[in-house]
């Protein structure tokens, strides 16, 4: 099931509907318009066209979230061509909207503009619409797929994912709400696509917590204790450990030799506890980044994140 972002509310005034085949032409026209504003347009500021990557947004399941503000925020750090693929459109034919959104790079500075495309398809035409993504990517720049919701499960979902996976370089998931089974599905996806690099917003949200744990072991004397560490605990709210807690446990197990036993226990707060010779070290979870910051971090990395892949593998390996 594809979700429908409430994009239109956000950019209603400037979204232009076009045929999918006319997207590039319409974008050229919009760029030309931006470069030559009407005389007397006091708002007009010099425009800089910058594009550092392609970002395709698609997925299955998930809430009916409004991704437009989030993408607008991300575009400040990563000017991009964003292509949002929406399923379950009404009517019989695919529809497409394009716009160019701009933000000022600084006070009195040029505006930096990014392109936004929405491709909407009735359920029956989704495959064709997904097929058109390949022709809409900006050449020679990395292409990311932000796959929202759970990993593809049904044959149809897998086929859709597969079509997109063929044209992108990196896939970004968000395992925050994944069950243990779904996290295993993510690990399976990583194994099934050895050509692709994978990232996870849920993993990006763990960076500051991991850094805080790593920092404890920077002094050489502490590193000596790390070598003989056999147990650690991660306290977390709720009964079942979340996917984040599982990933953090997987990270500790995949980084340390021999892998320590990591126990997860219910508690009020999220804290890593490690018993050492001098007492127990407690590292509470720092405030996580926003979704836009987490996505920005993932878009910064073009290649494989071996540490994440190993943590995911360890987190989903049955004892």
């Amino acid at each position, binding site marked *: 099931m594809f979700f429908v972002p409430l994009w239109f509310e956000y950019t209603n005034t400037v979204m232009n509907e076009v045929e999918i085949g006319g997207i590039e032409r319409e974008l050229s026209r919009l760029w030309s318009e931006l470069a030559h504003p009407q005389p007397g347009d006091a708002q007009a500021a010099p425009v*800089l066209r910058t594009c550092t990557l392609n970002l395709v947004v698609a997925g299955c399941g998930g809430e009916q979230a409004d991704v437009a503000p989030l993408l607008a925020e991300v575009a400040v*750090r990563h000017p991009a061509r964003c292509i949002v693929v929406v399923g379950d459109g009404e009517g019989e034919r695919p529809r497409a909207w394009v716009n160019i959104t701009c933000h000022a*790079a600084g006070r009195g500075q040029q505006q930096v503009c990014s392109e936004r495309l929405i491709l909407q398809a009735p359920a029956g035409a989704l495959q064709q619409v997904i097929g058109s993504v390949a022709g809409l990517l900006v050449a020679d720049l990395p292409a990311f797929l932000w796959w929202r919701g759970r990993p593809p499960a049904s044959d149809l979902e897998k086929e859709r994912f597969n079509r997109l996976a063929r044209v992108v370089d990196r896939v970004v998931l968000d395992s925050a709400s994944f069950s243990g089974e779904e996290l295993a599905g993510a690990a399976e996806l990583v194994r099934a696509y050895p050509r692709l690099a994978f990232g996870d917003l849920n993993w990006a949200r763990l960076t500051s917590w991991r850094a805080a744990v790593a*920092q404890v*072991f*920077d002094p050489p004397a502490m590193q000596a204790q790390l070598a003989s560490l056999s147990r650690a605990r991660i306290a977390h709210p709720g009964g079942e450990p979340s996917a984040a807690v599982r990933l953090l446990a997987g990270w500790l197990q995949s980084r340390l*030799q021999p892998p320590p036993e990591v126990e997860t226990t219910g508690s009020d707060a999220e804290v890593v506890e490690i018993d050492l010779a001098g007492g127990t070290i407690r590292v509470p979870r720092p405030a996580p980044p926003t979704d836009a910051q987490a996505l920005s971090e993932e878009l910064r990395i073009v290649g494989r994140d071996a540490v994440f892949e190993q943590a995911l593998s360890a987190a989903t390996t049955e004892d």
Partner: protein
Amino acid sequence: MNPLRESLRLPHTPEPCTFVIFGASGDLTRRKLLPALYALATEQRLPGGFSVVGAARSQWNDAQFRERMRAAVAEFSRIPFQSAVWEPFAASLFYLPVEYDHPLHHARLKEVVANLARQTGTRGNSLFYLATPPSAFLPIIRRLGESGLACPAAVLPEVAASGQGVGQPWARIIVEKPFGRDLASARQLDGLLQQVFGEEQVYRIDHYLGKETVQNILVFRFANGIFEPVWNRRYVDHVQITVAESIGVEERGAFYEESGAMRDMVQNHLMQLLALVAMEPPAAFGTREVRQEKEKLLRAIRPVAREQAASLAARGQYGPGAIAGAAVPGYRQEKGVAADSRTETFAALRLHIDNWRWAGVPFFLRSGKRLPRRVTEIAVRFRRPPLGLFPETPLDQLESNLFAFRIQPDEGISLRFEAKVPGRELHVRPVNMEFRYGTSFGAAAPEAYETLLLDAMRGDATHFAWSETVETCWALLEPLLEAWTAEAPADFPNYEAGTWGPPAADRLFEGAGCEAAGWRRP
């Protein structure tokens, strides 16, 4: 190596260490050093067990130091102040009042560093920063040697004896410019530094080398395949390096009277920029290899004789004028400046590099105060095409291709090339293709001091000046400085504030052997 650091996202942080700042009550600490350390703390780039000891003459205690630094960080940090970051960071700030030349005070400092080392597990790793006026450099260095602080084994003998942990503990010293005011004083400073520290322990900071765009020069040249083939005498007409400031000497009149533009800017910043843009590819991207290539390049610069001062160099001093619509006084009217001052506020020179790559290509360098705008850039101008093919645009009206590294403000790179103006006639016009750091990557670039302090803590001296380089630059410029000292300038002040310098600077292009006839307007 901490195995938990292994990641794309958790970069290699330095070993735990104590950072000792001499001159901790001064302006540099307040404006640059503490905000830089705070930014590193915010980004979790500091190691566990990191602490700062501020040492200066002011009679402060830890609490006063923390309070003042809190205000400094809130005012000058590029990252908004957050109490949650500040509180744990502030707990690692300490202060010790010292007289810089007092042996007992240095003994006390050694005790403080040793106690911190035992508490925080630094094993005695120490980084000293000389943020004092240059007059205090020599006594501090001498006392660091006498007290044993320069030798971590003397700070924590028990660690040295046990050989615990990886590698040996270290002590490093960061020295702020000026590195002397001529060849003799630079050698005196180096001589003492090398009596007390080994060259590998000394980090001469030139904050220009920490700027993103400066570091990008090497990336641009050696991570791309298409530029290096044209980066030579066959295609390049000439190179211009400009470091322009629109401000005057502000409160530094008395200091500036003793230095001038050549010593203050050309000897260090401009020569380093020249080395980066013209050096050969290093064998590896390591401290030693990059330094060697820079040194090799600087040694290939054709020496300038005293007698050539008039033809290869130009000096200027600003008179009253206007900047951004506001009237500003001349240099001689500034506070702390003599009414008949001979100090140059503008210096320009033409250099030739006698090696295979650059033979015959002139390099023009200029730096000045009270120029129309603040800009630092390196412009590489290419030769014109060999033939004029388009009748409406004669060859001499074609603009050459120009490659500009903009270092500040608006860090970026631009390439000028010719394009056809839309229309039935074949008119050609130059257009600029621009890459801007701020907009293409979005993320704010770190301040130069953040990068360089982290490098020094990690033991990476690639972006610091080397003693040999400093001396080579002094040796090269000394004949010009001598000529200028010997002969009083007849026409000072010779440029109006708010203009691009004296007419003498334009004469450097005469007989230079390049197509271009003047300075570009950056």
